[in-house]
């Protein structure tokens, strides 16, 4: 296997930042396969990519991309390199065709070769029907394909893709994967950076990074192989699976655990050391069987294990008491419709979420999931139908309902210039907490989320994981009865994500009702019920298991939530890629 990129003891520091962004990294990228560059936000993936592309000069160490020095021989390297930055590097006010023309000119592709590559790439990416659409009006998946097409125009000898699948739904992700796989099979070395471990698991070769350090380089199977026998699944649970997970995580022999629909999945500290189902009180029917180990299990193992099962936050919270009549439909959507001009973003969406349930809203990009979510929490007035929270229509008696509603936005909407404490104080005040109660609540939040050491730091300067904790703390200041989460864990590392869900599980047990949107299929498994939206309509509702069953063929249920998602969307007519992003 020849080597496409060779990194030798590469260190990179940004001015004014104490910790190095990359710390003594030595690795190589083999030709002819996809190399997954994997790690949570802040691991140093983008910096490494930019160093390989010659966009940054390393503070120390040597890099050889295609045998060239990316800085000294930059001009030669760029002629042979395809680099797709985050956000795909597209001009949003130019059409698909104009973007292609621009990059063709920039890469000096003319004449025959030009028309041939356009034909090939438009067919490859299936973008031909959309050549005259502005890139800004494409769905995330199409943008990503166009970005890839622009990069591929010059027939590069090395392909660097920086987080190509962020914000993209599973169907588009699978599509992209297919395309890139094809390229790699043709001999092109590809580096694919991602924070999704399941994605990285499919790469023949991975570079696993965290905090600027290279933790592992090699085949993912070798890592997962180390975990063999340590991953187990518990099914046919009687009683509450969330409390069971909590108990299991508190057991000494369990290192990590997640909910998978009606089952729970555990990673053991030692393959030989299985937990006692009876002691866990899993119920008489419960079974335990080995599960296929995953890269994520190995990653958490390297990081030293997941968080415990106890949520301090939930323990302190007073249980939510609702009148009997309310409990069956804490969140209710009836025939919700939204039109933007001629475009129907959502049509006749209806569902009910009873108290203490986690309801997930899933769907491809541009399918109407966000629109529905925003209508339900009162951010967007519906064109037809109505939504209510706790029986109150958010359009008429908004203030009363909002007092009991917590909301956490996708980008962790915090006041970046304000300190952690000032953010907490503001949200406490906005929800009417004052004086001693406010002070007590802020102290409690700082304590629970381990934010005390950062209390005086501006929110912008926090690491992503802490930002997410702070956002959650801000959303929970007023002990809300209903919690709206919009892609709550995108980009954060798996341990922080575990911790987040531990809190949510704890809150649910106290009677909080949760509505969540996500692109992350592992996260969907935590939901009690899922509503699947496609082409503006709710095409399926049910528990994760029910959806997997419904998606399966010949009596076999779909193995993963992702498969179920793809199957159900395709069955409902497939993703309508022509839908504009509203």
């Amino acid at each position, binding site marked *: 296997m020849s080597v496409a990129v060779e990194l030798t003891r590469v260190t990179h520091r940004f001015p004014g930042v104490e910790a190095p962004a990359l710390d003594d990294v030595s690795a190589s990228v083999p030709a002819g396969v996809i190399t997954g560059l994997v790690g949570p936000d802040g691991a140093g993936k983008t910096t490494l990519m930019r160093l390989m592309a010659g966009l940054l000069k390393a503070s120390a160490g040597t890099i050889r991309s295609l045998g060239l020095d990316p800085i000294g021989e930059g001009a030669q390297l760029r002629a042979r390199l395809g680099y797709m930055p985050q956000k795909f590097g597209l001009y949003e006010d130019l059409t698909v065709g104009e973007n292609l023309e621009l990059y063709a000119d920039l890469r000096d592709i003319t004449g025959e070769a030009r028309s041939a590559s356009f034909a090939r790439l438009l067919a490859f990416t299936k973008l031909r029907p959309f050549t005259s659409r502005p890139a800004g009006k494409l769905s995330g998946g199409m943008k990503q394909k166009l970005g890839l097409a622009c990069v591929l125009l010059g027939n590069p000898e090395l392909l660097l893709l920086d987080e190509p699948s962020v914000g993209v739904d599973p169907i588009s992700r699978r599509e992209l994967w297919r395309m890139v796989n094809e390229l790699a099979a043709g001999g092109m070395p590809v580096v694919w950076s991602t924070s999704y471990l399941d994605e990285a698991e499919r790469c023949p070769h991975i570079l696993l990074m965290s905090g600027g350090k290279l933790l592992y380089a090699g085949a993912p199977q070798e890592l997962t192989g180390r975990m063999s026998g340590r991953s187990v699944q518990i099914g046919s649970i009687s009683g509450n699976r969330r409390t069971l997970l909590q108990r299991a995580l508190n057991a000494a022999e369990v290192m990590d655990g997640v909910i998978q629909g009606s089952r729970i999945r555990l990673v053991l500290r030692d393959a030989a050391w299985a937990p006692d189902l009876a002691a866990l009180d899993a119920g008489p029917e419960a079974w335990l069987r080995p599960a296929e180990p995953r890269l994520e299990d190995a990653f958490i193992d390297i990081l030293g294990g997941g968080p415990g099962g106890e949520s301090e936050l939930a323990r302190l919270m007073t249980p939510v008491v609702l009148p009997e009549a309310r409990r069956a439909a804490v969140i209710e959507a009836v025939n919700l419709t939204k039109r933007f001009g001629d475009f129907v973003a959502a049509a006749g969406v209806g569902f009910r979420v009873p108290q203490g349930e986690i309801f997930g809203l899933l769907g491809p990009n541009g399918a109407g999931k966000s629109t529905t979510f925003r209508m339900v929490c009162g951010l967007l*007035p519906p064109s037809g139908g109505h939504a209510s929270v706790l029986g109150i229509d958010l359009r008429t008696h908004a203030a009363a309902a909002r007092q009991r*509603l917590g*909301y956490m936005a996708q*980008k962790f*909407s915090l006041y970046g210039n304000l300190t952690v404490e000032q953010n907490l104080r*503001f949200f406490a005040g*906005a929800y009417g907490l004052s004086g001693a109660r406010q002070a007590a609540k802020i102290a409690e939040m700082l304590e629970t989320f381990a934010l005390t050491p950062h209390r005086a730091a501006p929110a912008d300067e926090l690491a992503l994981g802490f930002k997410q904790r702070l956002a959650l703390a*801000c959303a929970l200041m007023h002990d809300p009865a209903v919690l709206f989460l919009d892609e709550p864990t995108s980009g954060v590392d798996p341990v922080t994500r575990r911790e987040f869900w531990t809190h949510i599980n704890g809150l649910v047990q106290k009677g909080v009702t949760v509505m969540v949107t996500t692109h992350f299929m592992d996260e969907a498994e935590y939901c009690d019920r899922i509503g699947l939206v496609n082409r503006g309509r709710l095409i399926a509702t049910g528990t994760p298991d029910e959806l997997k069953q419904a998606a399966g063929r010949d009596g076999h249920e779909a193995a993963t939530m992702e498969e179920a998602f793809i199957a159900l969307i395709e069955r409902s007519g497939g993703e309508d890629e022509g839908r504009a992003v509203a």
Partner: protein
Amino acid sequence: MLARLLTLIRKELLLALRDPQSRRLLILPVLLQLLLFPFAATLEVRNATLAILDNDRGAEAQELVKRLAAARAFPTVHLVTDQAALTRTIDEQQSLVGVEFPADFSRRLAQGESAPLLAIVDGRRSNSAQIALGYVQSIVQDYADERTRAAGGEVPSRIVLRNRYNPNLEYRWFLLPSLVAIITTIGSLVVTALSIAREREQGTFEQLLVSPLTPALIMLGKTVPALLIAFGQALVIALAAIFVYRVPFTGSLPALGVCMILYALSLAGFGLFISSICSTQQQAFLGVFTFMVPAIMLSGFVAPVENMPAFFRGIAWVDPLSHFIVILKGVFLKSYGLALAWPNMWPLLLTTGLTVSLAYWMFRRQLA
């Protein structure tokens, strides 16, 4: 309710003063304009240059040349010797005004005839040139009067000129009160329009919308800090005007306070309205810019409102700045109290009411 409002205000002030970017936007114009404007923004004519072509060289002409050369208004006087040099010095903008004595100037004067004196002004800078010409005329007039008196004749009438409110016509006395208005304009608009746009971009605006805070309270939460910041800026400039630049303050302080509140409110109305139609900071910035430039230009600060055609006078009437500048000059120089300020206060009230309700309507519309 009050506690929530205080929370909003506190947050807004923290944001405005903690963030270096917005702090710069609030402080830089104050400093820059306070240091630069009083010196740079002047329609006075000082250090003007005068060219004199004396074709006569008689005693009378010599005397007048001497007087012109000694005038304080013209520190530099070019004595040229021929027509071509006079033309060149005007053409090349070496001199603002040229005075040409005809060859028979002294003779005609001595004979008791009227003697013409030719003055050439540079029309490219007609405003300054006209003013400089005025200086020449008054020097010539004084000379003529003196001759009359010397000849035993009596000038039967004289003009007794008094410039009320500003005896020496100090341009700074006019400028600094106007500056109070201009700078607070920037402050108010930044806090309202730009900060809402930023909240929209950063997603915190949605966070506010899903909270129990009502649109009215959110708007109020933007308005009061704008008011406070505008007040702070106004105070700095007013104090500098009074104590550093020695502009008299003759009017009523409470009247100024009331008008200040009214003005800041009407600006907040415009700011909120701009922000309600903008989704990014970029757009808000452009919106503020497109509002502010005409607002300042047509406020009577650069050129008097009464010189404008009717259409622009109409726009100036809607422009809160034009009313506030009148009030400020009144309070500083003309001993204004509320009664005198009232004719300029009610238009402010009207625009405030209009823009605030328009903005409120836009906000509500986006929500429900």
